[in-house]
């Protein structure tokens, strides 16, 4: 086993997590899970920022991911509120059933 891993591996990890987030979004049927998949994607982004920050020896990437986190928090609040209203009107969290607007 090598002593260290190159930074690019972190980035690949980030990409994998991002991809898993995308997969979750596409394949999950529960609205909340779908939302969580987005959070996973954002986490992947954060990892990427921090990895790059390491490479650049800068702290700016951290700041960016900090803001991403803040935004995620805000989104979570609003998003969950929206999900609540949807649930209240439709009594379901199945994302496939929220499809009255189409074509």
């Amino acid at each position: 086993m090598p002593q260290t891993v190159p930074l690019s591996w972190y980035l690949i990890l980030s990409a994998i997590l991002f991809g898993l987030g995308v997969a979750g979004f596409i394949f999950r049927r529960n609205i909340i899970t779908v939302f969580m998949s987005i959070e996973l994607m954002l986490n992947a982004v954060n990892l990427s920022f921090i990895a790059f920050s390491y490479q650049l020896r800068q702290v700016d990437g951290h700041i960016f991911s900090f803001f991403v986190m803040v935004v995620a928090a805000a989104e979570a609040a609003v998003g969950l509120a929206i999900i609540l209203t949807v649930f209240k009107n439709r009594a379901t969290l199945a994302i496939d059933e929220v499809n009255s607007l189409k074509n």
Partner: protein
Amino acid sequence: MPANFMPSSAELLRFLPEMILIVMGTLLMVLEPLTKDKQHLGVIALVSLIGAAWASVMAYSNPGAAFQSMLVIDGFATFFRVLVIGVGVLTLFCSFAYLKRENAEDGEYYPLILFSVVGQCIMVTANELIILFIGLEISSIASYILAGYLRDDKRNNESALKYFLLGSFATAFLLYGISWIYGVTGTTNLAEIRRVLANKDIAPSLGLIGTSAALMFVGFAFKVSAAPFQVWAPDVYQGAPAPVSAFLSAGPKAAAFAIFLRVYMTAFESVADTWAPVVAVSALATMIIGNFAALLQNNIKRMLAYSSIAHAGYVMVALTAHSNIGTAAAMFYLASYAFMNVGAFAVVTHFARKGEKYVSIDDMAGLGWRQPVTAALLTVFLLSLIGVPLTGGFFGKFYIFKAALDANLVWLTILGLLNSAVAAYYYLRIIVVMYFKEPGESTADLQPLSAGVQAVLWSSAAAILVLGVYPSLVLDFAGQSAALAK
């Protein structure tokens, strides 16, 4: 060192419009429980928007960067600031009667509009990706809420949910892209990025730059509803309350285009040869999808949504040209588009009645004879959307395709213009229904236009005609500002 970071009064002045809006928005929140007649809040919101517009103009008298080059106040920014604020004003005018009719006169609506406008203002002035992102999120989150504002309405819920989920999804791509460009260039400041990319040594990492450009493209294209990321727009516009649809299709879109233009025309300008073909293809696809899908729509809001997709396609053509003329054309177009689209939606706002019952095109049968003025003004908007001369829409298209021809995009130009001929069909359909069909029961109990909607209609129509007869008024400014601060 600390002294350096204290914003100077000049910088604060440059940020004044946003500050006004934030303060007033907060104030409205505070006042909300204390006010009986919520329309007063709306009036306050209006006044503060107008104040902000004034402040934007003032801010332009001392252009330059602010807050460590986070923001830059140039002509371009000012143009879009005034534009999005203007859209906010028009939206408010549309909203009064609508909210009253839908018994949704909670005071929160007004601060939400204000904050969304703040977000857009920050976007259009942003010169740095972090603040750009935050501005985008402020605008978006406010928009998500607005789209689902009538929380008991199923359509509103669905609209908000779709908008929110897909919007966040796309934002994640954008962020991912930003992280890459940050990784490659070590900075998030657009001017800095531009400087790094202009360096010849970046050739090896062109693929990475391309990757980040691509990922950011997903985010931006989503926000402006360009193909293939336009899927959300029809559902959201259809489901959202009509004034909000008007707002969404004009304000956030214009702001999104502003950052799209700014990022791609400054930061990525040196690699334009790489991304321009992609934008061209996307532009073409956008026009085609928007126009052709609109042909079959019977829901007027949905049709306008598709039309708004198609119009995004035209602006993308201007972006493809990636020239100052193109940028100016896009600016002009977005301005005239904002007026005609808000105008058209305003008529829908008026016509839909309680619960948005009448939103099918066929319902408008005979409107031309029941309410001639409404119909005539809507006709002006539609003609402008078609691109008939002496309307702003025509000049917008004209400038865009002129820019495209300047950039030798002959085929894109021809296909684009043929597309606009296709588009004529579905706009004409509304005219056909309004004037050539006999009035039905759907127009029987139509109330007279509310003062607010009237204000929107008349001012939009006037703006469209002024832009159509004397486009220099706006175009000259756009032309001067098209050279973005770099």
